[in-house]
């Protein structure tokens, strides 16, 4: 096992453990903090895959912004620690069996795809040039200019929608 594989196994285990903690802890705030750890594990896997830009974006957007958003959302809720509620219910065994079956079905289906066993190939362009190519491709009219502008409209819709819903709630609370 090479060093790279060792790193991958370590970071994958960290990610899976953190993800399990997110869904199994009772305190919502602790779940949110473990979610940051899981996202950090995903960022490290991006780094192992030599996608430096996406690792940085993962940290900047997911850990920097979305985790903050989730923590603020938790802070807005009233009862975060209800001890009476359990994280599992009676049918968790059936759910586990179903998940394992579905997992194996998906794996067998994907493995029939011819590209499944191809080895990963490293990009020939070094880090700085990859970002450069991404930047020119993003605003290139033959490239991704239209999706780029559409992304801004999507972000605008998210901003307006979120503020519209949240602000109306605040007005109801005041009246």
């Amino acid at each position: 096992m090479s060093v790279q594989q060792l790193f991958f196994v370590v970071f994958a285990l960290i990610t899976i453990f953190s993800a399990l903690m997110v869904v199994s802890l009772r305190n919502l705030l602790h779940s949110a903090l473990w979610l940051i750890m899981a996202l950090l594990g995903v960022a490290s896997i991006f780094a192992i895959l030599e996608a430096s830009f996406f690792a940085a974006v993962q940290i900047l957007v997911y850990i920097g912004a979305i985790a903050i958003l989730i923590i603020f959302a938790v802070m807005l809720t009233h009862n975060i620690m209800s001890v009476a509620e359990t994280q599992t219910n009676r049918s968790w065994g059936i759910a586990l069996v179903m998940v394992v079956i579905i997992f194996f079905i998906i794996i067998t289906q994907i493995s029939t795809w011819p590209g499944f066993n191809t080895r990963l190939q490293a990009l020939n362009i070094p880090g700085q040039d990859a970002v450069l190519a991404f930047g020119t491709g993003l605003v290139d009219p033959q490239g991704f200019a239209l999706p780029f502008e559409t992304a801004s409209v999507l972000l605008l819709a998210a901003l307006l929608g979120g503020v519209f819903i949240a602000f109306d709630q605040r007005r109801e609370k005041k009246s």
Partner: protein
Amino acid sequence: MLNQWLYIGIFVVISLALPAVAILLARILSPKKPNKIKNSAYECGMETYDKTWVQFRIQYYLYALVFLIFDVETVFLFPIAVAYNQATLFMVIEAIIFISILFGGFLYVWRKGALSWY
């Protein structure tokens, strides 16, 4: 390629180890003579009597939402800034359109008063 991440990994290990060593050393070395006053939550002031978890203002959430949107905008603008020397006028105008669409959203939020604290 992995080498440049190795430095970050070393820094992560150091940054985790330093506070861990400090906390562990304090736990090992410090004498433990607890009494009632030392164990109280505040040295002076009243004990809390109800649930300490209060509902925060919606403004925190709105600020985080606006921050998230403009964080994503920064992520989109960063590669364009890197490629600025290769950019034509069309590309720059396109980036300006991108910014101005989101700035319109920012103006809407501002005018609606969602960013004010009262």
